[in-house]
């Protein structure tokens, strides 16, 4: 569980490694069909954005991946082997970390305590504060994070810095996939830039990043692929290199249900 230095980007092998493969995922809450037959692929070193209207099933999909509630049907393969994710701990042990919109940071604790909360390093029964602080700096420096001090309470940090701390915390366990839920919501321009740069760093580390966002401009700036969910189904999948924000919005609203089929760009449409 301890933070080790990751594979340096330079020696990254061809990232055809298929980290996550979801097929036919369905989920019902009573009479409400939240997800039906949803497919999703995530590769290492890739940023996949999931976009969709409110109630499209984005959060449900994230909750299934992070072990909050299991799917009713469908299969999840993690690095090629079929897995079940019954609890959040199971997701974390597999290597799937989630950063929720509320960040779940303890405002009264400093950056180091927040990063290592629940998995503190110990030497002979005592907390190894020195080691934890050194590793925190190492991690934050690798992420080129703009955090002036790791010994200030998190409450004193800006929104972007808090987001940075939350994302850095998700890396302590050396995950393969990081899920970011609305990381740029309610952030100013400079802070958004900070978070977008951070997402690029995660990508360079060879992690699979799942980005949930309503901001299409941010999505198009950092994502490699955009998966559209609409009314709990796959609404189309686009490579960012050959798509426009208009096409994605059309897929979100359903305006392109017919047009997308003959359009050249969706890799797969519903």
């Amino acid at each position, binding site marked *: 569980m301890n933070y080790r230095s990751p594979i340096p980007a330079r020696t990254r092998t061809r990232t055809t490694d298929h980290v996550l493969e979801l097929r036919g995922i369905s989920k019902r809450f009573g009479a409400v069909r939240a997800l039906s037959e949803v497919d999703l692929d995530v590769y290492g070193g890739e940023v996949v954005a999931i976009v969709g209207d409110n109630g499209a099933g984005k959060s449900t999909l994230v909750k299934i991946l992070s072990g909050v509630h299991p799917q009713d049907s469908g299969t999840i393969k993690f690095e090629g082997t079929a897995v079940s994710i019954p609890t959040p701990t199971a997701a974390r042990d597999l290597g799937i970390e989630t950063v929720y919109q509320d960040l779940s940071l303890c405002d009264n604790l400093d950056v180091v305590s927040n990063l290592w909360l629940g998995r503190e390093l110990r030497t002979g029964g005592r907390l190894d504060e020195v080691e934890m602080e050194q590793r925190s700096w190492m991690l934050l420096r690798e992420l080129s994070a703009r955090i*002036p001090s790791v010994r200030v309470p998190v409450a004193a940090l800006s929104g972007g810095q808090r987001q940075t701390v939350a994302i850095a915390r998700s890396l302590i366990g050396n995950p393969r996939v990081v899920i970011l839920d609305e990381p740029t919501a309610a952030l100013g321009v*400079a802070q958004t*830039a900070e978070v977008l*740069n951070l997402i690029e760093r995660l990508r360079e580390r060879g992690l699979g990043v799942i980005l949930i966002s309503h901001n299409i401009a941010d999505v198009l700036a950092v994502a490699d692929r955009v998966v559209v969910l609409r009314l709990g189904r796959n609404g189309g999948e686009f490579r960012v290199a050959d798509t426009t924000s208009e096409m994605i919005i059309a897929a979100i609203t359903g305006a392109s249900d017919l047009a997308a089929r003959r359009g050249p760009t969706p890799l797969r449409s519903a």
Partner: protein
Amino acid sequence: MAVSSGNPTPGSQTSLREANRARIVASLKRHGHLTQVELAGSTGLSPATVSNIVKELAASGVLNTAVTSRSGRRATEVTLARQLGLVAGLHFSSRHLRVAISDVGRTIVVENHVPLALDHRHDRELDRAALLLSDMLESVNASFDDLLAVGMAVPVPIDSRNGMVATPGLLRGWENVPIAESLRTRIEVPVFVDNEANLGGLAEVRFGAARGADVAAYIEVGHSISAGLLIDGALFRGVTGKAGQIGHVTIDENGPICRCGGRGCLDTLASGPALLELFRDDPGMQRMSDLLVMAEAGDASARRVIADAGRHIGTAAASLCNLFDPQLLVLGGELSQAGETLLAPLRHALERSALAGRDGVPEVVQGELGDRAELLGCLALAIENVGVGTDVGTTYRP
């Protein structure tokens, strides 16, 4: 700057000290201002070392210190010392915005970077740039009143007569707007705009690989390909700013259709998107950086694709050489980081098609300023345009 003077023996006490000084300055550029304790944390140096170096650099005028308080304790706040007046550089490339603020002595005090969506638009991006500038100015305890000029680079040719994009189709979201004027009304600071290859070339000829060259061309190979033409250290832009757009030299009459409306332009064969398109089915190959990493790791197809791009660029560069006759070609932009993988086939194609003189064809070298060349060019453009009447315009720090 004082931190990088001399050339001490590697591994010696002096070189270690110099490296530590450079670390402190780099950290301040990222954060704007920091206390000594924060500096120790962010550089990994011991507080005593930081304190000594800060004292030394403050005495030599590189840093400013002020007494402040952090969490109720007395602390020393450190900032980079700056001369009166600041300038800003904004480099809009196809996928990135780089921003730097420096003093008129070219010491960069704060720097930032934002990834951009592929087809960005002028209104949203200029709004964002204005907000970002005001945030960055605030981080160095300054305001727009301290900003004397802004230099800006865009990835398209700019018609200097009206300040608009010179060719339609290349950057759709920025057409038919007087770009400099548009940003000036937002921040009320004079703004100067030019093509990114022009400004990259300006930086390389002033401070980089083309220093001292009488006639040189800077070829930027990234998301698109264009060149900046330099005569006696000054840019040659042509009548409408389109001089040096070698990305739109025809290589294959029957080739793919280009953004500019032509067919088989160099851009359609050797620009970033064209190269990545060849790896369409590979999910691990989405960005130029992926291609560069693969090539460096020895992947045969990645190296071949870069070499082929070099060959095409060499053919176009040969025409450029026959028309312009430079003594030096400097390669910049993201793909130039592939080094000899790109340059060797480029030289070969150049030798085949360019007129050879007594000393062969022009020398081809990689830029020295890397991906910051254009940004440094923006700052140079801004500094150049700081009003001659004001006394700060003439100050210079070596």
